[in-house]
């Protein structure tokens, strides 16, 4: 089993990196680009366990380590 975790900055929290990339894309001529937000994408291989179990555990990992809940949100998917 595998978990895919998306960690993104909460709305309202400044994303300097996203801003810099947005400007760089504009400078490269991609004028259609609006807001850019940059987050993290994690793939976690999981041994054993059921899907529900896995989800619960990965949620725990996110809360404990993977996301900084003060400024970040997370979303996860369990895939076979």
């Amino acid at each position, binding site marked *: 089993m595998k978990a895919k975790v998306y960690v993104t900055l909460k709305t309202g929290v400044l994303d*300097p*990196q996203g801003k*810099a*990339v947005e400007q*760089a894309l504009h400078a490269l001529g991609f004028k259609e680009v609006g807001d850019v937000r940059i987050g993290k994408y994690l793939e976690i291989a999981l041994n054993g366990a059921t899907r529900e179990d896995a989800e619960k555990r990965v949620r725990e990992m996110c809360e404990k380590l993977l996301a900084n809940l003060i400024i970040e949100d997370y979303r996860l998917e369990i895939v076979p």
Partner: protein
Amino acid sequence: MKFAVLVFPGSNCDHDCYHALKHVVGVETSFVWHKEESLAGFDGVVIPGGFSYGDYLRCGAIARFSPIMKAVETFAREGGSVIGICNGFQILVEAGLLPGALIRNRGLKFICADVSLRVETTGTPYTAEFRKGEVLTMPIAHAEGNYVADPETLEKLKRNDQVVFRYCDAQGNATDAANPNGAMDNIAGIVSERRNVLGMMPHPDRCAEEILGGGDGLRLFRSMVGSLSESRV
């Protein structure tokens, strides 16, 4: 003889390189703003360290699109001397002027410390004053200096004698323990196939004066200036 020190938004060793070249080595040096498009009149180009564009996305990824980089490409293609130090090295690999990539240090943290370097080749304009196998001391200061390249590229670098410096211990052994960032094959600096473009993570600009604790950086800059003067006569 005249050198250009490029200034990108976020460069922060620009003044250090300028100081080393102008006031220590004593060659004419000017800052060149990244929005400039020409390097006419310069004999050598230094891309200094720092955090161009905040190192956002990837180190060097945004800077490499600055207008001045087109001029650097042409300059390099025509055989001009280009040295990229730290963030400058990162910009050069992002721009494709040197092969490979620089990723996060294996310990993940920024490291600011003196390291030992083994001179692997004297066949470059930058290392003429050194002896092959000589052990130098130079500071590093980076979080993304872990050099990676695919096996063919690595093979080619070795075959063509393009590896210029390797991290080593005080005795000159390129051991894993002496590798500060996990770089493949302990690579600290490489030169282009034509041998005119040098990229290195360590900072010669920080060891160009005895008062800062060493002079190996000065020898590197002097080699560069010396080779350029020779090639001009």
